[in-house]
């Protein structure tokens, strides 16, 4: 059963990941990302991390990717990208080599340890103990060991709010812009959409 779940979810994950990278259209990339997110959520459930699975879906699928799509639509930047041109000669090949290396490093590391973690066992509370639901276990850890970390995430959120507000300030007039680059053609469609949506900025 778990084997089956694993392989299906893993296939979804990998397909989604490849979709993100290979889709020409950013919307398709975003949708592929959702696929991966669900796959990962399923893998969480398969490993008894129910709470995280739910949170993963709520935060990632429900908020993050939605925001992505929102931005794509708001800006009208869903233009397909021409992937057949290597922007920098050899960059793509180099990136793939780097990718393989990045994949190989942890796998090789795991191989040396006999495909097993080497760390100390059950430091902060057991996962397999079904008497304590994972939500409670996580809660306990968050409010004891990670209490400081938990508190400082508030700073992070404050920064996100302040930063977003600052960046979303009304766009200056085009004449005011200091643009030191050649003019580019702009799509009228996208302009119309973004002009109307500008006032909705603050809510993003």
């Amino acid at each position, binding site marked *: *059963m778990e*084997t089956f779940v*694993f392989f299906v979810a*893993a296939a979804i*994950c*990998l397909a989604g*990941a*490849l979709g*993100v*990278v290979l*889709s020409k259209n*950013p919307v398709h990339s975003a949708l592929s990302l959702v696929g*991966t*997110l669900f796959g*990962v959520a399923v*893998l969480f459930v*398969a490993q008894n991390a129910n709470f995280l699975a739910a*949170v*993963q879906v709520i*935060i*990632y699928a429900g*908020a993050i990717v939605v*925001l*992505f799509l929102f*931005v*794509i639509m708001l*800006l009208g*930047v869903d233009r397909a*990208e021409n992937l057949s041109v290597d922007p920098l000669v050899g960059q793509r090949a180099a990136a793939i080599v*780097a*990718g393989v290396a*990045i994949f190989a490093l942890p*796998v090789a590391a795991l191989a040396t340890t006999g*495909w097993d*973690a080497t*760390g*100390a066992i*059950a*430091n*902060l509370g057991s*996962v397999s103990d079904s008497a304590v639901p*994972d939500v409670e*276990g*996580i809660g*306990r*850890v968050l409010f004891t*060991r990670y209490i400081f970390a938990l508190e400082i*995430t508030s700073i*992070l*959120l404050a920064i*996100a709010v302040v*930063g977003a507000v600052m*960046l*979303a300030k009304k*766009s200056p007039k085009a004449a005011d812009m200091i643009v030191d*680059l050649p003019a*580019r053609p*702009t*799509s009228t469609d996208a302009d119309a959409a973004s002009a109307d949506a500008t006032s909705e900025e603050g809510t*993003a």
Partner: protein
Amino acid sequence: MLLAAGVEPSWYLVLASALFAIGATGLLVRRNPLVMFMCVELMLNAVTLTFVTFSRMLDDIGGQAVVVFVLVVAAAEVVVGLGIIVAIMRRRPDATADDLALLKG
């Protein structure tokens, strides 16, 4: 029965590292800042999967607790990142990472 388990936890780790590598490669290959950013999310997902798997292997709930932080950070990153992307793309809707080569010298 169907529930007979035959999955090695390390498979999850290998899967996670594959996801991570795909994300990293994608970030290096793609030029669209939005897609690059999605690749970062892929990488973060790979990390959360790794954490959960280790949490299971070590039978330690601490690994799962960490994932909560990763999620919060991811959310905050998205807000800021999309803020910047909106700020720039509103002015130049067709910006790609190559156009950002304005800053070369």
